[in-house]
């Protein structure tokens, strides 16, 4: 059967036959083209498009995530730096306060010391005054006694003239001074 076909159609092929396709060839070619076209149109291209879109989305998402993380890190850094600055300011403030307080304490202590010194000085003055008063009192007492003694001596002497009286007084004061000096020397 095949050899018959060849004998009928095979031997008289002309060049023009190459350019005029037989009907069956067109039919099957159309089928092939249609299959491939629909495969690409409805199945292959959409499938790949979906994957490409998904990939683009993932990459986009990744970039956005990276940007978000970067922003968060920046914010955290800024916050940290602000806290650090606040901490430093706080420390400086505390130091200034402490210095101030220290100065105040020193000033208070100085004032107290001054007051104490004043007090002590006053006490000393008071004591000195008291002692002076006491000394005055005892001196008066002594002076009275001495005056009495002096008077009795004067009475016992003959007062001939003013010169004699003056000599008596001078002698008396010299005695007084001498007794005072010897008294002081004995005290020391």
């Amino acid at each position: 059967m095949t050899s018959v076909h060849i004998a009928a159609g095979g031997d008289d092929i002309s060049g023009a036959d190459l350019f005029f396709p037989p009907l069956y060839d067109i039919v099957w070619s159309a089928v092939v083209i249609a299959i491939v076209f629909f495969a690409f149109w409805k199945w292959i291209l959409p499938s790949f498009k979906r994957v490409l879109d998904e990939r683009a989305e993932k990459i986009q998402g990744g970039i956005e995530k990276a940007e978000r993380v970067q922003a968060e890190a920046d914010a955290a850094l800024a916050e940290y730096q602000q806290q650090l600055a606040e901490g430093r300011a706080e420390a400086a403030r505390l130091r200034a306060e402490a210095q101030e307080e220290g100065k105040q304490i020193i000033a208070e202590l100085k004032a107290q010391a001054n007051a104490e010194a004043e007090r002590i000085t006053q006490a000393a003055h008071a004591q000195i005054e008291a002692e002076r008063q006491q000394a005055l009192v005892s001196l008066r007492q002594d002076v009275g006694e001495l005056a009495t003694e002096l008077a009795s001596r004067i009475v016992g002497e003959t007062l001939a003239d003013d010169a004699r009286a003056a000599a008596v007084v001078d002698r008396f004061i010299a005695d007084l001074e001498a007794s005072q000096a010897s008294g002081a020397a004995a005290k020391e």
Partner: protein
Amino acid sequence: MHIVDVVTAAGTIALAAEGSAFHPPSMKDFFPPAIWFEGTPFEVNRIVLIRFLAIGLLLGFFALVIRKLAVVPSRGQSVAEMLLDFVRVNIVEESMGKEKAKRFLPLITTIFFLVLSLNLMGFIPGINMAGTATIAVPLLLALIVYVTYHAAGVQAQGLGHYVKNQIVLPGVPWPLHIILIPIEFLTKFVIQPATLTLRLTINMMVGHLLLVLCFAATWFFFFDASVGFKAFGFLTLFGGIFMTLLKTLVAFLQAYIFALLASIYINQAMAEEH
């Protein structure tokens, strides 16, 4: 002789093995005998089966890739994506821009992959026949492109405007139109689809003839010719290897050219001025 011719259907190399003399390739290679439904519009022969095998392999490859489609691509997916991107970016988007590209992408992608897979069938040993080496597929594809670009042009500009835009070149002194209008008309309505068809068909046809000629001659020199001629066998063998490499290039190139010209024609038809 008849028996030998029948074997032609199974490939010229097999033919040479059974025959005892030099069997050059002939045009009968392009008209193989029917296998089923002889004489009906649904006659199936070797070339028809080769075409189905080709698209079976093509769609099988994509089916395998799509089954495991992932955001992080496997090796097969990377290859598939690279090819699809090549068509989308380097052919369609570059020639007609992103906006129009969306509409015509399925058509151009189909053209590229169908032509490529049919062309590549020419290398498979025992098949050695590109599915595009007979005129039917290139002719149909060219007709589809032809109808598409005219339809797109008419849709974009309206019939009268479109025809005028296509055949009347702007800025030309009017006497020249006597010559230019027929030339432009022939170019747009006859020459473009014809060259699209013939370029591909003849390339693949001649590629087949040259390749088979080289291998048939090699066989003849090695096994049938006298000792003195055996050295020529190496020459033709290297010729065959060279032709195989060249045909690989041509297979890609023709698929690329067909797809690129199709997008350029569509873009040209839609453009307001050219």
